[in-house]
């Protein structure tokens, strides 16, 4: 019962999570046995040595047998591996050695960082965009937008990952690099872009013909003006947001937050948001020198400060709507902070371009010898990450958008939706308060499965883009029938999947109070 107080409720959720952890570890163990047996039976680990003509053949074979413990039966080898791997629980992993005697721990450290960064980023982006697009498509069912989204979703579903990756490598990297060397947008391209964006926005906005035409005209004109202006000032090579755009964009963020919570009529909450932006403008000048070359610690500290300031504003001026005001103010403060960070990041793009004339990399997952300031470091890995992330995001985005759409449509046919409308609630309240929350519940269940398939996709994507990530570790290990790297791959990705699953479960429990009983 939810009225028993927060302590009890927390206890039940904790118990629920602990039970899930127990089950997950059991499954991880079962899967590890399966994976181990399959890997060692997938071929002959000594095959290349048996065929070699080198004089020290016997010696090489003996060394490999020694490294891989081939003289032991399979269960003893598995037990040795499990003994080392179970030390991970006390944070002292020992993942064994590969067939040349190299410690797998070292191999995994770098590979895991780059692969997990890729997969996590793709998951988050796919959830955010996929759910948004799915909801819009459901609200505007049978509109042009809905049909386009449906078709694109089917297209991305059916797209072979490796094929899309090679295509993107050509058009997203090689051609973009050629373009950025001497950027410029021709008049025809600008016009086409303006028309395209105008069309997209007008079908999203919907409404009657007058509203559509108006949306189309405004978007097209604004985009045309922006692109022309950017082109004129050489924005593509020296981009920046500037205070004006920062304020404008954070106002937009505030508006979106308000639409999702209390609507645009609640004066008190609006004033809280505006006050937050005001404080943000002051701190923009105050932290300017700090933001020139910060570190991650500093960024995190500043973000925490922004959140606290937002919360204080919410508490001080929120009045009877204190909790909503706090959420809005903190959200606005964080958006403002992020925009300031983005501004600085963009200002360093030119500097990064001078060092790297062909910025988007097509091969490799990171240049360890890179030197530059904080922002250039970010650009360095962002330009390597962007294309693989796009490939992975597109493919799981399709799934999320389809799933959200059908879940949302299912929800909008429920009786309580009709009740909500018939008692006179606005579209906004019905869609965000009644439909969205209930429609999100089933989506949390596909996150777990989708994460696993993204890891599979990452194996392929990493190969196309020549990353030495977890995928390469797995592939090489399997090709040489060497269980240690394969098991390391399995352990890292499996643990990450379980963690993701757990997050989904917690989200599930917070969305659906029934599960906590």
């Amino acid at each position, binding site marked *: 019962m939810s009225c028993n107080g927060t302590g009890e409720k927390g206890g039940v959720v904790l118990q629920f999570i602990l039970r899930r952890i127990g*089950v997950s570890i059991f*499954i*991880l163990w*079962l*899967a590890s046995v*399966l*994976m181990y047996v*399959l*890997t060692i*039976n*997938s*071929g002959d680990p000594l095959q290349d040595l048996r065929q070699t003509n080198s004089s020290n053949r016997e010696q090489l074979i003996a060394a490999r047998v020694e490294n891989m413990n081939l003289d032991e039966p399979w269960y003893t080898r598995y037990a040795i591996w499990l003994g080392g791997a179970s030390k991970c629980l006390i944070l002292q992993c020992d993942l064994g050695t590969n067939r040349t005697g190299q410690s797998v721990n070292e191999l995994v450290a770098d590979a895991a960082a780059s692969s997990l960064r890729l997969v996590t980023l793709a998951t988050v982006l796919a959830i955010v965009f996929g759910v948004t697009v799915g909801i819009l498509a459901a609200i505007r069912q*049978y509109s042009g937008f809905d049909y386009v989204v449906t078709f694109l979703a*089917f*297209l991305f*579903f*059916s*797209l*072979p*990952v*490796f*094929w899309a990756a*090679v*295509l993107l490598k*050509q058009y997203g990297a090689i051609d973009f690099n050629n373009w950025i060397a001497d950027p410029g947008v021709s008049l025809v391209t600008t016009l086409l872009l303006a028309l395209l964006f105008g069309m997209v926005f007008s079908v999203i906005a919907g409404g009657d013909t007058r509203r559509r035409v108006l949306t189309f005209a405004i978007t097209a004109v604004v985009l045309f003006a922006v692109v022309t202006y950017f082109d004129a000032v050489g924005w593509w090579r020296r981009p920046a947001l500037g205070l004006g755009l920062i304020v404008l964009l954070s106002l937009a963020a505030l508006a979106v937050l308000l639409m999702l919570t209390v609507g645009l009529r609640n004066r008190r909450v609006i004033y809280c948001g505006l006050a937050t932006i005001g404080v943000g403008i002051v701190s923009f000048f105050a932290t300017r020198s700090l933001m020139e070359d910060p570190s991650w610690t500093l960024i995190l500290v500043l973000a925490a400060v922004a959140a606290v300031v937002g919360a204080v504003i919410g508490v001080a001026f929120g009045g009877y709507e204190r909790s909503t005001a706090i959420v809005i103010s903190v959200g606005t403060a964080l958006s403002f902070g992020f925009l300031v960070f983005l501004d600085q990041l963009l200002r360093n793009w030119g500097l990064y371009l001078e060092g790297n004339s062909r910025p988007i990399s097509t091969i490799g997952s990171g240049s360890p010898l890179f030197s530059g300031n904080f922002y250039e470091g970010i650009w360095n890995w962002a330009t390597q990450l962007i294309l693989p992330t796009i490939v992975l995001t597109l493919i799981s985005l399709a799934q999320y958008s389809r799933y959200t759409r*059908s879940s949302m*449509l*299912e929800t909008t*046919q429920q009786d309580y939706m009709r009740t909500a409308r018939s008692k006179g609630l606005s579209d906004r309240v019905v869609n965000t308060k009644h439909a969205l929350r209930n429609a999100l519940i089933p989506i949390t269940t596909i996150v*777990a*499965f989708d*994460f*696993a*398939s993204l*890891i*599979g*996709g990452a*194996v*392929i994507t990493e*190969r*196309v883009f020549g990353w030495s990530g977890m995928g390469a570790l*797995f*592939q090489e290990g*399997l*090709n040489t029938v060497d269980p240690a790297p*394969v098991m390391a*791959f*399995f352990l890292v*990705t*499996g643990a990450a*999947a*379980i963690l993701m*699953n757990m997050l989904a479960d917690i989200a599930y429990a917070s969305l659906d109070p029934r599960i906590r009983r």
Partner: protein
Amino acid sequence: MADTSSGSAGDRPEQDRPDAPGSGREELSPVTGQADPEAPHDEADVESKYSVEKQLDFTQKSYSQNQLVLRRFFRHKGAMIGLVTLLGVTILAYSSIGTAAFPGWWDKSYRSSAMVVDGGRPTLSLFPPTWGEYPFGQETTGKDYFALTMRGTQQSLLVAFSVGIGSTIIGVTVGALAGFYRGRVEAVLMRATDLFIVIPLLVLAATMSKGLGGGIWGISFVLSILVWTGLARLVRGEVLSLREREFVTAAEAIGTPSSRIIFKHILPNTIGTIIVSATLTIAVAILLETALSFLGFGIQPPDSSLGQLISTYQTAFQTRPWLFWWPGIMILAIALSVNFIGDGLRDAFDPRQSRSED
């Protein structure tokens, strides 16, 4: 309210006014004794106007459940385009180079090399529409790329359909048993599904098919025993709710054996789910097989597969892009049309979320 400006109507609403004599509706008139017995009466009209029962239109044809499903499916534009494309691709792939059993109409083999003509550029053109000597071009050693692509398409289709059939049989059996008997089978099913949260499908398939040596039937087998879990869960869910229904209780009451209840009473009611899921499995299988072949754990050379072709020639994208485009377009065409067919089937079996009327 007193509105006297509208003359004779006064404050009386329009429909309460007496009808003119001879109109046939005098009996409704508050002014009695004005009914004209000679006036034409229309009983049927009165019936249709004031009856509380729904009027059936016997001139229209009525349809059975199966006919309704078929009608909805054939009216689904996307599904029809998908079906035509899939049939076209299948017929092209099998009739052009033929199989071991029968020869095709295309004169070149995917095995034999030849002189490279014009840098191996494709001779296919739309204006004027001609096939030419090498419609899809030639690869580096002069093999005809059309024949190679068609061979790859055959292999992919074969894998996809055998996986579709195999995994459906496994999935339906396990799902039905788990839903009907609960207990241990259900626990095994649930743990097997959980397994795929921890091990990606592609990784497990790669490991298993490497052990089996990468023949086409080996891959089909591996994929079949891996991709059934989704369908099994769906079938289990439906069986769980169906086994509580009255018709199952009735069957049990007259002593019908369990196997007969499952196969004759319950499973026919889940046919929609099964067909839709089997179709979507085919699309998944195509993509998995090509991905495996791309990674080098699938179909091995000298045999050809669409994924393997892309893998071999992906570095040639700058110089010979057609080596890369054709197999990709083939995969995309097959997977896309299968997905559209699946969507059409889903709308046909479960029209709650679709626009179609009947």
